[in-house]
């Protein structure tokens, strides 16, 4: 017999001080959500999904609502879920316009023989399984927009400083 446990994280990065409190409240709430599912008789996969949905719905975290933006100001999300008993896995890559990518990842695990679906295919699969598509604006926060704008301003300044040439092409970068 094992003492059940639910562990969550909200991302490893230089969390700015103004987000510390909201981030801590968010991970505490998610741990409670998953633990509640477990103690109510849910499976360990149910509990993991419930905790991550709670975190995806919290705009302070970079997942689901509150995701950061691509260079062309879109939201593209990735998610995975793995059942340690069967070692079955489900994942989505570059999926857009859904509130909870982890739910689509679980559908991939349970409804297909595949591990991962990406891009437009992932979106078509989600729609075929009743996952409602949302307006991208629902997922985008002002913080995400500000962060992208700051990044673009910085990179073009640095590029201009060191290259004394016109503004850089929108080159691909991390």
């Amino acid at each position, binding site marked *: 017999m*094992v*003492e059940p*446990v639910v*562990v*969550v*994280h*909200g*991302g*490893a*990065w*230089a*969390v700015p001080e103004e987000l*510390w409190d909201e*981030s*801590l409240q968010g*991970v*505490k709430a*998610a741990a*409670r959500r*998953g633990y509640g599912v*477990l103690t109510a008789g849910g*499976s*360990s996969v149910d*509990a*993991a999904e419930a*905790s*991550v949905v709670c*975190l*995806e719905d919290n705009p302070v975290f*970079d*997942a*689901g609502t509150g*995701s*950061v933006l*691509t*260079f*062309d100001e*879109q939201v*593209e999300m*990735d*998610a*995975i*879920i*793995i*059942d*340690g*008993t069967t*070692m079955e896995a489900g*994942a989505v890559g*570059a999926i857009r316009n859904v509130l*909870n990518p*982890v739910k689509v*990842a679980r559908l991939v695990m349970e409804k297909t023989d595949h*591990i991962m679906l*990406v891009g437009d295919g992932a979106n078509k699969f989600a729609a075929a399984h009743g996952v409602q598509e949302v307006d991208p604006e629902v997922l985008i926060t002002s913080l995400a927009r500000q962060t992208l704008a700051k990044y*673009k301003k910085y*990179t073009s300044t640095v590029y201009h400083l060191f290259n004394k040439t016109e503004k850089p092409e929108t080159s*691909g*970068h*991390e």
Partner: protein
Amino acid sequence: TVGCVVVDREGHTSCATSTGGITAKMPGRVGDTPIVGAGGFADDQVGAVSTTGHGEAIMKACLARHITSVMGTGESVKSSIQNGLAHMESRIKGFGGAIAVSCKGEVGTHFSTPRMTWAYIQAGKLHYGIH
């Protein structure tokens, strides 16, 4: 990036990880999160891991699988995470963090970035942190 690892009363484990990626990423760029063995891994014979940080480094290091492999040698969960992060830093100059739980309910959290928010509940008691 956000994530969760769970072990239930029967020792059944699972993991889940989800992310919006990194700011200004190229359209179509997929990071470590949906990659089995990198963004997450779960096997009832060892435990479950969810990782976060610089995606390309985590993929090259197969960080989640590295951590469970070290756990499988009997190392503590925390030192297994430290081992994985140190390997990723020394070989690939990448930084990140992970949470993990063993199939026996041992918990570990660690990160090589300035901060990572985490929380866990065991025996009804809530633990949490950011530093």
